[in-house]
């Protein structure tokens, strides 16, 4: 699936620039965050094209991304580096091609998602994502579950609205830079966890 291929290449490119490379788990986590940011922006969960599940270990996972990772690795578009996966020249060329296609808009959301790692320590971002209510439920029940179900999305929408309420009240559109609602949401999940563990 070309959408998943672009996601793998774009996330790898962003993390390669800022952190030397991307780990496989990080690709699933940042793609999931990008998907949620696109949902916040467009209110259309089907727009992302592929589905995520919560593993029994409470992490987001997309089969489409795993397949894309394997295919891109076999084609030589992704290479193992000392700090995770990096793009080869072929990978760069493929990414540029996909960015110029109708799928290119996805990178708008992936850039916002990966830019959150510039605002907090990188390992904190995937850790905060695991605090998302649907993922927390999967971990609690030790069961693989479908993500992006209507109830779960409704709660995520409410969380995004709550953290961007202050900006809205000052007539500032949080969508002007989607990195901002994304980092506010992650900070909210961390804050909520910290307050509940200190009670």
């Amino acid at each position: 699936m070309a959408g998943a291929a672009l996601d793998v290449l774009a996330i790898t490119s962003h993390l390669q620039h800022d952190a030397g490379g991307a780990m496989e788990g990080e690709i699933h986590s940042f793609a999931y965050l990008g998907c949620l940011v696109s949902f916040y922006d467009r209110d259309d969960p089907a727009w992302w094209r592929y589905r995520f599940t919560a593993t029994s270990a409470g992490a987001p996972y997309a089969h489409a991304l795993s397949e894309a990772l394997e295919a891109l690795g076999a084609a030589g578009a992704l290479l193992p580096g000392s700090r995770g996966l990096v793009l080869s020249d072929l990978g760069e060329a493929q990414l540029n091609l996909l960015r110029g296609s109708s799928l290119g808009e996805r990178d708008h959301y992936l850039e916002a998602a990966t830019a959150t790692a510039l605002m907090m320590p990188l390992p904190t971002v995937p850790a905060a994502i695991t605090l998302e209510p649907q993922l927390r439920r999967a971990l609690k029940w030790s069961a693989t579950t479908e993500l992006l179900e209507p109830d779960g999305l409704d709660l995520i929408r409410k969380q995004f609205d709550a953290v961007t309420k202050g900006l809205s009240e000052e007539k500032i559109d949080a969508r002007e830079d989607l990195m901002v609602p994304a980092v506010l949401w992650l900070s909210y999940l961390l804050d909520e966890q910290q307050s509940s563990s200190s009670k």
Partner: protein
Amino acid sequence: MSDPIDRDAAERVARLQFASGVLKNYGREGTKALRKLTRALRVIHDALAYELMRDGLTVFVPLEEGSLLIDGIRTDSAQLPSLVKGGATIEVRDSNDYCLQPTASDPRDFADTAVVYHFDGADHFVIDGELQEVINQTSYPSVFGLPTFYELGDALTDYRDNRALYSQCPILSKCWHDENRWLLADSPEQYMRDSLHDFLSVTLRGHKNIDIRPEQPIDGEHTPDIKVMWTVTNRTAYIEVKWLGKSVSKKKKLAKHTEVRARKGAGQLAVYLARDQEAAPRQQRAGYLAVFDARRWGVSLETTSLKDEHALYYETQDIDYNPDFSELRHDFERPRRFFLSPRLAPS
């Protein structure tokens, strides 16, 4: 039905998250400059130790690309440590291209035309013309100065050299009974374990979960102190924490742990790994023994002075493990010894 949203947390985060403040003050140009600024902060904090910043560090990125707000020395990160003494003002011009004034300044002076960061023991951004402290959920002074690691082994090496050796970690610094760092406080292992857990949580990439395990054995079995799980893969690492040296109980009694304690810890970990292998044969596991070594030669509660060579007697004395489980088991990693240095008298 109760509100599923924690409104207090949402309000607190919205008010204090600097990215939101930057968007509010400067719009999209501001958040674009903020990306450039935070990328630079990682490099600058890596180059300049917090202790070098006694008088304050100000770093900013002008909103208008190409505009120059200060005159100073054109430099890069490699030169910063030799140029900065106590305080600095840095304009970020490009990736690893800075204009430096090696003196502190009022960060608010630049906030009309730039996104401004300030460090004076904690991270701040200038928001609404005032310094606003950054939400920092780590125990380190800056969220921008933390290294990240791909491999657990590399993270443990960095922890040994840059956190444990001089007890720079604020959690670990609580494990001492005295300022000279000769004797440990009562139950020091909790600080050692928490310090290592905190460090790994914010520096180790790709982990899903880092748990501190229950202190008491379950079903008669000793569980290692820290468990690290990774996303996607079925890798799990167990870290057993032990300490050597002398600790002072609340009743002012000394408890002494010698290297026998480290060998016992190695045995416990090997037994645990063997049982875990039987219980979950498809799991990839690795066991690490982390030994915090606070041994001093000839120290007691009555000691009032200690020669440097006695305080440092064990600095290079590795522990002789017999049997050496790292040779016997493929999942038993080489034990790590974190020597905890004493505070030495100025020479």
